[in-house]
């Protein structure tokens, strides 16, 4: 949340404008009161002719128009301010996420982050569009009104000064006595509110067990409990407004009484002054009420602010790049020296990873689930930054290389390739350097074994897929990803081998394609197939984020008992 000080620095112009509009709006209110009272006084007591009052009526109309316009202007600045802040925050978040959100995706928090960008940012709107303009108005206008009241009729001013502080005091007292109770109720509310959704989500299960009819009563009961819990909390809020209204009504009664007594008994004020007091006092209390409401709105946004702040404070771990071009006549030599990676202090970490990968080598990374295989692949790919150690490419620290010349040499074939909204052709072309011809795209599709499928589609390569278009099966997506690689002809291929679930055809195509691509590239595989592992030039065995051992299949069989037992368990097959 912007503090007022920060706000004043960043949006000085807007704040000043709001202050000016509030001053003008306050002046209009005072002018309106004077004109109203003047006209009534003239018509009622002085017997002034209607025609003579016309200019004053016109002035009054102008004052009212001013009051409305300045109020509108104030609100409009607030809305603009909110829009500016929201845009700023969104682009800050986008900047941050587009730099480092591989971590987010790795830790499965994408949905949460989408909601931060969409909903949380929108939740702060009220703070800028309502709360700030309202607070400025409510600070300036009542003071102007009070000054006017004091100059015109001191006693009314005194009554207001004495009674007005009771409003916040009352609110605080009521607030304190019910705070604990209402917090307890809020917990209850949270528990109840999920019940309806819970039942709807479980409807299939309920029906399968023939229980769904009985749930009606439960929904009703929990809804009514929810109502009662909510009412307890709301009563507090209502009691607050009641106190506010009660006090303002009482004080206005007092003011009326005092004015009347002076008019009749002491006869030391005029009708004009008395009536002016009766007009100005309610305006004063109304503004106080608005301030109360504004605080309520402001409080609602503070949760959203904290969440955004936390999000923006998360460490930024961008991958660093330089400008040195990567020459790629043949695959580069890649070396990790004591590289490490972690995302959260307490969380999982890769540590002390040292591996040399020569050109055209086939490397298999193996290890249990959660040992860090995919994370290592992401570090090698340059998708996340290593937090320690160094990564050398052809003997030079990778961060000195130009980002695009590195990624131009890289293909990543994952278990779940992502298809962008667009046509099949566009989705394949995204893999290649710019300006791939249709022939090249189709040739790549042919090699990846999707030509047949695409031919069966009405629009062929121009069929839209991805978010908006026709869904493809897992195997088909995998083949589109392969087509991308064939088009790109990278010199480094990172491959996350599928575990289960592919159809035989894709399985075969995948095997062949990798063999084909390997002719011109270094291949680093998170391996799940014994076949792949056996034929690897180098096996990296990971456990809990550390390299246990590196070697060929034969060497590891001899030296590492863990490896031996893993392999023999698999070859035994039926271990049930």
């Amino acid at each position, binding site marked *: 949340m912007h503090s007022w000080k920060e706000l004043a620095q960043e949006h000085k112009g807007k704040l000043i404008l709001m202050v000016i509009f509030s001053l003008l709006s306050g002046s209009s209110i005072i002018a309106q009161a004077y004109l109203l009272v003047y006209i009534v006084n003239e018509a009622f007591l002085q017997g002034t002719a209607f025609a003579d009052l016309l200019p004053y*009526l016109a002035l009054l109309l102008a004052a009212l128009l001013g009051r409305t316009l300045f109020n*509108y202007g104030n609100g409009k600045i607030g809305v603009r301010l909110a829009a500016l802040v929201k845009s700023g925050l969104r682009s800050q978040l986008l900047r941050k996420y587009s730099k480092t959100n591989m971590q987010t995706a790795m830790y499965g928090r994408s949905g949460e982050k989408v909601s931060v960008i969409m909903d949380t940012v929108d939740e702060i709107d009220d703070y800028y569009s309502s709360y700030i303009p309202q607070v400025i108005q409510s600070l300036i206008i009542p003071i102007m009104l009070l000054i006017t009241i004091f100059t015109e009729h001191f006693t009314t001013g005194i009554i207001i000064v004495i009674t007005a502080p009771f409003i916040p005091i009352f609110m605080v007292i009521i607030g304190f006595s019910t705070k604990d109770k209402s917090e307890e109720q809020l917990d209850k509310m949270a528990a109840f509110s999920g019940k309806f959704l819970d039942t709807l989500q479980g409807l299939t299960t309920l029906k399968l067990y023939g229980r769904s009819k009985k749930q009606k009563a439960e929904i009703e009961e929990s809804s009514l409990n929810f109502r009662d819990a909510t009412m307890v909390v709301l009563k507090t809020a209502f009691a607050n407004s009641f106190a506010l209204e009660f006090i303002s009504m009482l004080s206005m009664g007092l003011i009326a009484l005092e004015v009347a007594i002076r008019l009749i008994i002491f006869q030391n004020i005029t009708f004009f002054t008395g009536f002016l007091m009766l007009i100005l006092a309610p305006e004063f209390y109304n503004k106080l009420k608005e301030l109360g409401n504004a605080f309520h709105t402001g409080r609602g946004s503070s949760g959203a602010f904290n969440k955004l702040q936390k999000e923006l404070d998360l460490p930024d771990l961008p991958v660093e790049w330089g400008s040195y071009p990567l020459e790629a006549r043949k695959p580069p030599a890649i070396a990790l020296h004591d590289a490490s990676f972690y995302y959260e202090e307490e969380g999982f970490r890769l540590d002390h990873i040292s591996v040399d990968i020569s050109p055209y080598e086939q490397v298999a990374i193996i290890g249990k689930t959660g040992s860090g295989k995919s994370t290592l692949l992401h570090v090698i790919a340059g998708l996340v930054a290593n937090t320690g150690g160094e990564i050398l490419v052809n003997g030079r620290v990778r961060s000195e290389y130009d980002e695009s010349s590195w990624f131009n040499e890289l293909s990543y074939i994952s278990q779940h390739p992502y298809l*962008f909204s667009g046509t099949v052709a566009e989705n394949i072309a995204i893999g290649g350097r710019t300006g791939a011809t249709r022939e090249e795209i189709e040739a790549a599709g042919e090699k990846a074994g999707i030509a047949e499928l695409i031919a069966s589609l009405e629009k062929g390569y121009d069929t839209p897929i991805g978010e908006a278009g026709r869904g493809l099966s897992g195997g088909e997506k995998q083949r589109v990803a392969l087509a991308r690689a064939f088009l790109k002809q990278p010199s480094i291929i990172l491959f996350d081998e599928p575990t289960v679930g592919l159809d035989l055809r894709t*399985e075969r195509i995948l095997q062949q394609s990798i063999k084909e691509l390997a002719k011109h590239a270094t291949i680093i595989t998170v391996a799940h197939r014994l076949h792949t592992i056996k034929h690897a030039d180098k096996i990296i065995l990971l456990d809990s984020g550390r390299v246990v051992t590196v070697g060929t299949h034969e060497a590891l069989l001899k030296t590492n008992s863990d490896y031996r037992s893993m392999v023999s368990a698999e070859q035994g097959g039926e271990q049930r």
Partner: protein
Amino acid sequence: MKDLTTVIRLLFKEKKDIILSIICGFIGGITAVGLFSASGYLISQAALAPPIYTLMVLVGTVKLFGIISAIGRYGERYYSHRGTFTMLSNLRVSFYERLEPLAPQIFQKFRSGDLLARIVGDVETLQNFFLRVFYPPIVLFLVFLCTISFTAYFSIAHAIVIFVGFLLTTVLVPAFFAVRQRRVDEGLREKRGKLSTEVTELFYGFRDLKIYQRMDEKEETLNQMAESYVREQEKARIHHLYSESLNTFVSLAVSVAVLGIGAYLITEGTLNGIFLAMLLMISLTVFEDTTSMAIFPSHLEDSRRAASRLSAVVGNEPTEVQEKEDLRLDSSPEIKFQSVSFTYSEEERKTLTQIDLHFPAGSRTAIVGPSGSGKSTLLRLVLNFGTSVQGDILINGEEIRKLNEESIWKYANVVLQENHFFYGTIRDNLKIATDHATDGCFVEILAKVELSHFNLDDEVLEKGANLSGGEKQRLAIARAMLKNSYLWLLDEPTSSMDSVTSTRIYRELFELAKDDTLILVSHRLNGLEKMDQIIVMEEGQIVEVGSYEQLMKQKGYFYELKQIEQSVFHG
């Protein structure tokens, strides 16, 4: 608008709260008007130096009105909110009544997971219907009616002016903005939807965006979309502000008219000057609440949309369930598929094509194949979840579409891939399966599925969030075992368990189900030697059927899948 009538009907169940909110709202409003008119009259009287008792009566009235008004407002808030929440409860129940007969077919129709969350959100939106749309105009109308009648007693002209003002501020201005509101809202929704889709793509496609160097481009597009969304919001907000300001101005202008006409009538001699301040105060006060009418259109529009979305899901009336025959079983059933094809409503391609199958009574069948090949769909068709199927599915020779679904479910012990667990205890979640089991029985079953480390009183969070994947599956199996009827339908019931546990649990299951008909969808291929038949599927078609030995000897699809699986290195 028709959809809202359903809501209104439900609303009228809470007559007492409606009437009390209206009465309290009316009292609160009219006494506020009374308070200010009395003080206006008071001051005018005072100027003429009247006898002191007149003054005392007036002052007393002012105070009394003040107190009553504050109490009235409190009562209004209290009863209107209570009524709203009771109405919400009725709404939930009524919605549930209408949805219940349609489930789970309806989930088949809308496969998107957010349907339910949207439903819950829409029900919540409707809370504003009573609170902001339904009763405030009634209160406003009553207050104006009384005020206008009262004013008419002093001056017809003023009554007319106030009436015109009332029409302007509560009907004409809001109606004018309501039309534009709809357009603004539509633009806003569209922009929001687009942005949300693109942002999601940023996260799920991150790796590919980065590697294919489209990140900067994407960020640029996103920034532009975010900007245009914010602009649209700004437009909507300003539109709102504009309508509010216009409303305020009209109501203030009415007071000027009241004053002007008053001054004119006094000059003409048809109005006593002593009433001028009072009339002015009346008009200033009575229009104070009309500003709330400025937001009326947007609440109305929201409620209308929520109501029509809800009725699009479930209709406005409880659906009449067609009378169908009940399935009756006293031994394990035989199931047949005769050239069955099935397509999900929002998809082009068939999920199942021309399936012919036979599951003999008391047999044990496994369905295997790559993911997306239609295994689970096939299993679900037996439960009659899917609405329109081509071809016939027969249970003991009876066509499934002529059978009452619930009578099929009665005999089915089902474990799906996603099993729901309710907020409550382990016991609550087991009790769903049977009314008659004792705690001892539950404990015994828990031991069988290796969940002995749980107490029956242990808490289960919503959706079983505090249980691991394997624990959830075992609890679901425990539930199915408690039911123990003649037909077992199991969809990858042990996918999250390690193979040792999985094998032990299958042993228990097969022992319990030895005389029943059992269909198991499995992604693993080991342990299938004991099955009577194995069905191999690919792309919605059956590739092979046979026993384990037959399929292995045949060296076909199953054999190859098996070769791959054997070489899979789980680490």
